[in-house]
């Protein structure tokens, strides 16, 4: 067995928490049940990984199998990666039957024609998701297994979720291979990113309960606001105001849990305007400013801003449009007439 393969398997095993190693090896299915029985999982991880490598040696594992184990790990720990959503577009309306073997064949052929040294691995999951792992090399170097790209593609949708390699130059190749393989014409980044792959899917597949602006607000039932105090000696003066906030919040965010995003970023590209008489800063230079909101759970925090009394309701549409517009990275340009003053800082 190749030494780099052995080392890669060893390092992958080391990444797995000890009490999950057995489960992941079973999912991998490369080692037989009898072989798994011989493994001692009650020792330090370093020793477990050595034993696993030994067994792989017996089965003469190659990089394909090692990559498969890596996909299994990343599928379970998908939140460790940063995911970005891409949308593909067709030129015509022709509907084609999706053939997975054809997709794989075209994808491989396209990538290999551009770059010989790549490791491409596919794995299909029950929810119609195809996971693709690509490790990149150069014309003269073997693929670097430690800096791969991951792609999650749902064949019935135009959306692709990419966790790209730190090797940035590989992204155009990857995008090209994707549109060729899936018979699309064009691909663009949606400016929607998060660690939570499932939340991104919830947003683009519209799987969470959001009442869009067109919906008529449902009448609020009395006593629905959870600010009722048990103690009658505490009087809440702004009850009706609170009910208004609650209603507005429901309209904007819906009643369900929010998808998990960690950031919202607004880049200003507006001109600085001042009195022409003052003759200062009257340059044609854009006013550079970057406003970044971050939170372990951004949309839930935004949702609780007004009820917690930290901001006025309703919040700026710039903040609440995130799931609706399916993007959390924005550029604000002159024409729209939006200024940082319209933000509410949490």
């Amino acid at each position, binding site marked *: 067995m190749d030494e780099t393969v052995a080392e890669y398997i060893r390092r992958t095993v080391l990444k797995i928490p000890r009490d999950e190693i057995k489960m992941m090896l079973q999912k991998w299915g490369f080692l037989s049940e009898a072989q798994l029985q011989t493994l001692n999982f009650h020792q330090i991880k370093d020793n477990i990984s050595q034993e696993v490598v030994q067994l792989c040696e017996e089965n003469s594992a190659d990089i394909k199998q090692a990559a498969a184990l890596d996909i299994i790990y990343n599928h379970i720990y998908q939140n460790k990666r940063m995911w970005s959503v891409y949308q593909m577009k067709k030129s015509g309306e022709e509907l084609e039957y999706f053939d997975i073997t054809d997709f794989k064949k075209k994808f491989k052929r396209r990538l290999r024609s551009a770059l010989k040294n790549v490791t491409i691995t596919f794995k299909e999951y029950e929810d119609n998701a195809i996971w693709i792992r690509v490790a990149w090399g150069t014309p003269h170097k073997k693929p670097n297994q430690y800096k791969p790209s991951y792609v999650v593609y749902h064949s019935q949708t135009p959306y692709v979720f990419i966790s790209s390699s730190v090797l940035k130059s590989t992204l155009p190749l990857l995008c090209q291979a994707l549109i060729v393989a899936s018979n699309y014409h064009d691909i663009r980044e949606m400016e929607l990113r998060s660690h939570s792959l499932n939340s991104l899917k919830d947003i683009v597949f519209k799987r969470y309960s959001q009442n869009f602006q067109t919906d008529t607000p449902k009448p609020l039932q009395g006593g629905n606001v959870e600010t009722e105090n048990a103690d009658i*000696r*505490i009087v809440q003066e702004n009850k009706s105001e609170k009910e208004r906030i609650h209603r507005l919040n429901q309209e904007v965010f819906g009643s369900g849990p929010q998808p998990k995003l960690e950031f919202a970023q607004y880049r200003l590209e507006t001109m600085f305007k001042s009195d022409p008489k003052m003759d200062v800063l009257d340059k044609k230079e854009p006013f550079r400013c970057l406003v970044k909101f971050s939170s372990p759970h951004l949309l839930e925090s935004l949702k609780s801003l007004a009820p917690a*009394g930290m901001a006025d309701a309703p919040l700026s549409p710039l903040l609440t449009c995130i799931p609706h517009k399916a993007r959390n990275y924005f550029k604000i340009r002159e024409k729209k007439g939006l200024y940082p003053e319209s933000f509410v800082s949490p």
Partner: protein
Amino acid sequence: AVRGRCADVRLSALSLCPQFVGSDEELQRRLAETILQEKKDFNINIHLATSLPLPSERDHLRPRIDLVVFMIDIKSKYSLKNVETSLAYVDASYFLGKVCFLVTGVGRKNDCSIETNAVCKLGEAYCSPVLFCELELEGVRVATAQRLVRMLGICAGHIPGVSALSFVSLMRKSNDD
């Protein structure tokens, strides 16, 4: 605590009524509950509000207010702004010792977005004491509650020989040192 409210004095000897104005409602509620748990020889009814003026439709239900506590979250500029605009609706007579500023969140120095100085200036401008506390800490919350209950007693004229005005001048003396 609204302009004109003072004409309508309904003195119920054993019921004191502080009013909390502030935007962090969770903290407000917790402090109110702690105050009610305090042992004291009078009843307390607490009114919570996010900002002033108070909604007028409840005017007839509101007893005389004895003390107005403005809560400022040191982590939020919004809360300071809110208090500053609310101050305009307080009857001038309240500034003779029946208003205090309660600055919360001072336990987390790194998250401060308001300068302490700005709050102290506010206290000076309105001749009212400024208290600093961290309500997230149980011990400090209890101590703050006790302190407010004592002040409330004074403001309502329950402590013989100490008026709200004399108390607030005492507080000022210590501030000037």
